[in-house]
């Protein structure tokens, strides 16, 4: 029995590892290729599409000023641009800061949510903001984001030049990567996620997932879909699936870059990631049992991916961890032999080389220090995810069982040094 479970878990784990390796190869190929699209957009254009940037803000006084400053720096015709900052139930100075900038700059608009539309989470705030917007292209930024000046240019024109794309997703980088070991890990994680999962899926399947920030979507589609799902905890994943279902794809375009800050302590990290994980679980079960209703079957690739990742992959790892632990105490007569050690080593090396390849796609990221962090990360940060997924599954299971309403935790922000060193 123990043997059967071990082999089962190994097959699941390695199926996922090979899928990831396959995606990583796609990411690598995309990193060689995406510049061509970038060049295509560099040619001067006459009619820029009208862009509305939505920035939901709930108690963001620490970061919102930097965010607005970066909006002012954007290289995009200001007459084609509106920045709508949705002050959602803030109890701090967020509202007054926004108002101050709105008075000074014509293209910046402050929207304050009012009861009953107040404090209902990010999706509700975005839907609210959408009502005030007039752009053909809607771009979303989190309140802690500082996009690079060309970001909107690439997002807006990238979408304009690709009629099949319902949305386009840029790349995000971590502002506070060098703050501590946790942010260093997160930096490595986000780069790997984007080059492996986003770029990789885009390259092979013409798919990627809206990450919640630094993406543009056609207004027409949003209206057709009825805006954001206010019950979803990860509104971005959920929206992605509906975009595909509407017959469009989502382009990943790493030329559009934003910088955002990541949790600097474990508590905030855990809370944010629990929300993501629960959100993804919500999406899996929302669509898993309505598969037949999905018009674009390609979405299944993603739903299955999530299903495999959250249910089987973590289940497999959990199982093999437990078998390993039990085997230390009691001989389970495992018959696998020496190949299990080979798999352990190869699995570890696969992790390290994949992550290093992702890091090497950015300037100055594949440093010796980061390399050591990657080695260390495997045994710490990666294992923390295991706990996180278990915890999230428990919470999500409880919610579904007792039909509780999801509560949207806002991620806590950290004040950054005024002079940013972006090359983390």
């Amino acid at each position, binding site marked *: 029995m123990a043997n059967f479970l071990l*082999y089962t878990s*190994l097959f699941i784990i390695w199926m996922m590892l*090979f899928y990831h390796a396959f995606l990583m190869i796609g990411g690598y190929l995309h990193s060689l290729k995406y510049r061509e699209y970038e060049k295509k957009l560099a040619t001067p254009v006459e009619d820029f599409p009208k862009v509305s940037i939505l920035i939901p803000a709930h108690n963001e006084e620490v970061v919102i000023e930097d965010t607005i400053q970066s909006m002012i720096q954007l290289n995009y015709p200001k007459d084609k641009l509106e920045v709508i900052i949705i002050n959602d139930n803030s109890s701090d100075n967020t509202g007054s800061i926004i108002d101050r900038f709105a008075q000074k700059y014509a293209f910046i608009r402050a929207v304050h949510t009012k009861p009953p539309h107040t404090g209902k989470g990010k999706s509700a705030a975005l839907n609210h903001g959408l009502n005030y917007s007039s752009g053909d292209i809607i771009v979303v930024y989190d309140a802690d984001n500082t996009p690079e000046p060309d970001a909107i240019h690439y997002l807006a024109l990238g979408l304009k030049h690709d009629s099949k794309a319902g949305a386009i997703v840029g790349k995000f980088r971590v502002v506070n990567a060098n703050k501590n070991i946790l942010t260093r890990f997160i930096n490595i994680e986000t780069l790997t996620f984007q080059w492996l999962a986003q770029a990789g899926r885009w390259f092979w399947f013409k798919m990627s997932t809206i990450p919640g920030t630094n993406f543009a979507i056609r207004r027409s589609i949003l209206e057709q879909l009825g805006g954001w799902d206010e019950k979803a905890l990860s509104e971005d994943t959920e929206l992605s699936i509906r975009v595909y279902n509407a017959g469009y794809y989502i382009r990943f375009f790493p030329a559009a870059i934003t910088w955002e800050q990541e949790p600097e302590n474990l508590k905030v990290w855990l809370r944010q990631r629990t929300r993501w994980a629960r959100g993804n679980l919500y999406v899996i079960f929302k669509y898993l049992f309505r598969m037949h209703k999905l018009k674009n079957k390609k979405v299944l690739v993603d739903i299955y991916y999530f299903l495999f990742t959250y249910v089987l992959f973590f289940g497999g790892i959990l199982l093999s961890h437990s078998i390993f632990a039990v085997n230390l105490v009691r001989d389970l007569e495992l*018959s696998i032999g020496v190949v299990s050690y080979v*798999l352990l080593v190869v699995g570890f*090396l*696969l992790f390290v080389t994949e992550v290093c390849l992702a890091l090497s796609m950015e300037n100055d990221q594949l440093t010796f220090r980061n390399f050591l962090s990657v080695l260390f990360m495997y045994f710490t940060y990666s294992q923390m995810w295991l706990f996180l997924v278990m915890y999230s599954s428990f919470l999500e299971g409880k919610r579904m069982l007792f039909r509780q309403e999801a509560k949207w935790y806002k991620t806590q922000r950290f004040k950054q040094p005024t002079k940013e060193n972006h090359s983390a």
Partner: protein
Amino acid sequence: MRKKSRNTKNSFILILVISILFPFFFNTPESRAEKNGYSNVLVIYTSSDGEIDEHQRIFDMLISHFTTDVKFISSNEVEKKDLSGVTHLFYYGQFPDRLPSTFHTLLNDYTGSILAIGHNTKQLGTHFDFIDQKNEFEINQMAFTDKKEKRLNTSYGKAINIEVDKGTEILVEGTRADDSASYPILVKNQNHYYYAVDRMAIRETIFLGEALHQMFGKKHMDASRPGYIRIEDVHPMVNPEPLKEIAGILKEKNIPYMIAVIPVYTNPETGEEHFFSDSPELLKVLKQMQEDGGSVILHGYTHQHKLNETGEGFEFWDVEKNTPIYAPASKEFVLKHERDFETREKYEEYMKELENFENEYIHKKVKRGIQELVNYGLYPLAFEAPHYTMSQNGYKVLSESFSTYVGQLQLSDSDWKIMDSTPYITSPSFLKGMQLLPETMGFVEEGNPNALQEIQQKSEMIQITDNGVAGAFYHPYLGADGLKDVLKVMEKIPNLSWIDLKEMDVWVKTENVDIYTKNGEVITDVKQGALLLSSIDFPLYHLKEFIDMVIWGIAILGGLAVISFIMFTVHLHSRKAKMEG
């Protein structure tokens, strides 16, 4: 001139043709006679209770080297008609006894060759008037009169003191420790032979065997001596390393050999069973050995019965009770005697039941043993009973599955310790058609400093015979060096020709499995589907093999991915350096 030269040529061709055909003319009648059962042997015996016991069986082992047409009839039951067509007559008087009065005239008309052993020769008509039997006396050594330097100790220290008439040839003589005189032991007068012992073990049969070669006119001309080395007790917990080394040595020397394989190892303390499927490394070594010159022989299924260690325990004999296996290991069993029954019929019924249990027990184990090995891709070509213990009934059961038996033979159902070997390859009638490749030289016993010396002595003993088998075995856990020593002893034997089971005519069969040899090749006829369906363990093993292969495939593919990612990283790095440069 021309004519003459043609004549010379013609006569040359004629001589050539004759010389080519001559051996056929010469050999054919005898070999055909042999095939037609021309050597028709009758053994009349006088035993303690009129039944055949170990004494007759040891003679059976010897005589069956020459012909399989052997009939044993008790001196109490033999009739004149039994003698018709007999070409070679034997009388074995193991006990001094008064033979039935018919014996005065019974053999009067018999003119063929005749050999008598032991007592009562005076009652066989006038055939043995050339000897005069006296009392039994002590004899310590025996030797051929023409090769006196090759002496052997007698097994029981006794012989029958005889005096012989003039004109009688003394083939073997005996000597005593206390005087320098020699005494006739095996004598020949025309076509009459007499052997002055009443009990025999292998040493006695060695001398008798050489006389029988004369009697049967089968003096071996080529004088090549068959020999074998058997790697013993290879069970699933055997360390593959020394075995590998041993296989290497034998392969290098180009020596075909046997591997006595036990499919299941039972841990004596926990009762836990280990199978070859748990030892893939060992299995790999065994398959390679089978490929390279080794022939697998089935050495029991577990080599133990109750809770004994594999290789130590007895599988087909209840050593505690000293009976065949008549009850399950878990059941307390006491063998009843005939006196415990009211009638003989009831006793026989009881014994029949016990025998049926034994039949079933042996059949099951043998079937499972063969099938399990075949499922692993190991093809047994013969059988060897654990500790050589097997009841007479057991041999009968075995003979349904095997054509060939390797080792020594238990000769009595009353005590497992009564076992012996015989010098020649033989098919004794109690093996029910199986051919025996006798083990004659023993093994290297752990902790015995004289082990090699003992093997050497036995080697010398067997070399007294013309074509007696030099068979030894070796436990691989003792390491490869010990085997080299044994091989050194064996390789000194002149004209040794290593037995290769694959080159012999052997077969093994059980349900869904048929194995046989043909022109040096092992042919297997296995009903795979039915075999796999017969036990869940069989498909599970193959599934595990497949999974192992897939898992190694995963590891290799993973390794390739790692290498690719390193190469991609280096590529990106150099590309960036170029762009910046």
